[in-house]
């Protein structure tokens, strides 16, 4: 009796395995994997980017005459989970290309694995230069932080008329540390003075001690290139403490929860960003915005737009390569010139970083509004 039951279970398991392996073996679809932070500290990015990828998929659901199948894995905003997610996409799902992650630290954890497997990956929004450095198969759809930090410093000095700045850095994030460095370098070069540098950590909620220290140094602006949750809480506490100087930040803060959490405190906060729907210039961009707003019932955001670009870049490269071979797709990606993406014209360089323009946005009346475009 025992034995027969054991055999029955074995047969069932075998059957389940066989059927599970079935669709994967049949080559009637092309799989593209996405690993994104759908939960955790930066979940808003993952959810915006997944929205963008879905719309892009709807606009271009086929390549090389086959249907594209999307596979999503949640990284829980965590570096280790990100690395595991890429392993799963590469080994179990056998994807031909990867989109992700949303933030630099996690992408740097995932990239070595796709690199070893020779599967090209395109991160929508990882802006730290190290993300693609020394990697053949790592790409991104966004500009990189040296450019972003430089533009922020120029904007602070020329437009905000700042002579002194306080820098508040999230020490736990590669992105924040890197971007702050590039800002400081350019700001000092242009004659500005950094009067205080303080540190916070992802997940911190109380910044009153750091802010009181900043207040004592009387800066003209605060540069806080951190993610949205920390920046929103920080802005709120700064305003409560009576610090009313402009706050300038990077692309990582431009997410809706910033406004929901920060409320009035984040009014007039400035961002160096990737995209604003008012600045959309390409047909693909306009079509995307129309579809996005119809389907999702909200305004098209930068993270979704860049994720869509990551998808379009991958699909375009597969099309041009005429194959799903990783190395061929990689070579096609490198050769993409003046590709009219959602967020603007993209020219991919050999090093995996695109050349593209930047926008400056700010918060006004509880909305992200467009200020200006800056070309490289």
């Amino acid at each position, binding site marked *: 009796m025992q034995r027969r039951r054991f055999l029955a279970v074995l047969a069932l398991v075998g059957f389940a395995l066989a059927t599970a392996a079935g669709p994967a073996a049949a080559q009637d679809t092309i799989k593209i994997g996405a690993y994104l932070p759908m939960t955790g500290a930066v979940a808003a990015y993952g959810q915006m980017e997944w929205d963008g990828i879905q719309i892009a998929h709807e606009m271009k659901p086929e390549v090389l005459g086959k249907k594209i199948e999307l596979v999503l894995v949640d990284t829980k905003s965590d570096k280790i989970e990100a690395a595991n997610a890429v392993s799963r996409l590469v080994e179990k799902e056998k994807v031909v290309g990867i989109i992700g992650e949303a933030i630099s630290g996690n992408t740097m954890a995932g990239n070595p694995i796709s690199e070893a497997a020779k599967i090209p990956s395109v991160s929508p929004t990882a802006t730290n230069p190290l993300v693609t450095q020394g990697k053949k198969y790592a790409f991104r759809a966004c500009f990189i932080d040296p450019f972003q930090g430089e533009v922020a410093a120029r904007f602070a000095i020329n437009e905000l008329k700042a002579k002194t700045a306080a820098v508040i850095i999230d020490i736990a994030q590669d992105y924040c540390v890197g971007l702050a460095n590039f800002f400081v370098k350019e700001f000092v070069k242009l004659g500005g003075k950094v009067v205080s540098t303080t540190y916070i950590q992802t997940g911190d909620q109380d910044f009153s001690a750091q802010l009181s220290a900043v207040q004592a140094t009387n800066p003209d602006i605060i540069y806080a290139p951190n993610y949205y949750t920390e920046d929103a809480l920080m802005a709120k506490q700064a305003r409560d403490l009576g610090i009313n100087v402009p706050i300038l930040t990077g692309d990582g803060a431009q997410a809706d*929860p910033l406004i929901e*959490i920060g409320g009035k405190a984040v009014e007039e906060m400035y961002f160096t960003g990737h995209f604003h729907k008012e600045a959309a210039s390409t047909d693909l961009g306009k079509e995307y915005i129309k579809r996005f707003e119809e389907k999702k019932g909200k305004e098209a955001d930068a993270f979704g737009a860049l994720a869509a670009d990551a998808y379009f870049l991958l699909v375009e490269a597969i099309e041009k390569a005429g194959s799903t071979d990783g190395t061929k797709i990689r070579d096609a990606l490198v050769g993409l010139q003046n590709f009219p993406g959602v967020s603007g014209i993209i020219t991919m360089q050999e090093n995996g970083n695109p050349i593209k323009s930047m926008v400056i946005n700010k918060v006004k009346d509880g909305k992200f509004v467009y200020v200006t475009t800056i070309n490289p």
Partner: protein
Amino acid sequence: MTTTIFFQQLTNGISLGSLYALVAIGYTMVYGILRLINFAHGDLLMVAAYTAIYAVTMFTLPWYLSFPLAIALTGCIGILLDRVAYKPLRDAPRISLLISAIGASFLLENLALVIIGGVPKGFPRPDIFAKVIEILGVRIQVLTIYIPLMTLVFLMALLYIVYRTKVGKAMRAASKDIETTRLMGINVDRIIALTFLMGSSLAAAGGIMWAMKYPQVNPFMGVIPGLKAFIAAVLGGIGNIIGAVVGGFALGLGEILLVAFFPQLAQYRDAFAFVILILVLLFRPTGIMGEPITDKT
């Protein structure tokens, strides 16, 4: 550092410390009666904050109705938690209870994650709590005054209940020896349920205050406050209610003053708190105000 900045930092420290204290009272109370470290205590903060948000935004209740409602509901969830996760293990080894508590904590967090999602929400802070007053250049949020006051009121109420009422006597008896207390004809399960009701309501009050001060509500918002309150409770002497308040203020002030005097060490704030925990456990496991280890076996 100027005097104004110093006093500003002192205010910041008291404000943070009183929040730790508020959460720590409930933590320590449950421990005092049951000798159970209720790891789900921090997650009850989160439950209360979400309940308050939904009461205000979905049912458009005014804050003075929705906050008590959130506190009451969280209190009931506390009782439920006891019934489901702890009561069946009353006679089991203490380690099983501890593991059950960790499980309950994960369950609450992940339930919230599935039901509500991981994107943080703001908190509808009523205007009367948002005011800022300025005294001699030191800016004080009115919340910073209300929270310590509230902590003190709860502390008094709790001390009264535990030391001056019959129910309190039963609680103290149960903390000494559950079996004998039961033999004396006291309904121990009811006393324990009441303990959880009070402890969880305190967590809820702490959660609402926390969310008003740091308005980003997400399924994991209770983890760090829970840990910090635990440290505060241990620092003050776990099981001792006054000790929890003292420990909370000490920890809050310590964290803020560390950053104030050594801005370069700001990123080691949490490390500082945990180092304190380790030191206390090593050199004075009974904390500042704890009684010497008793005969409780």
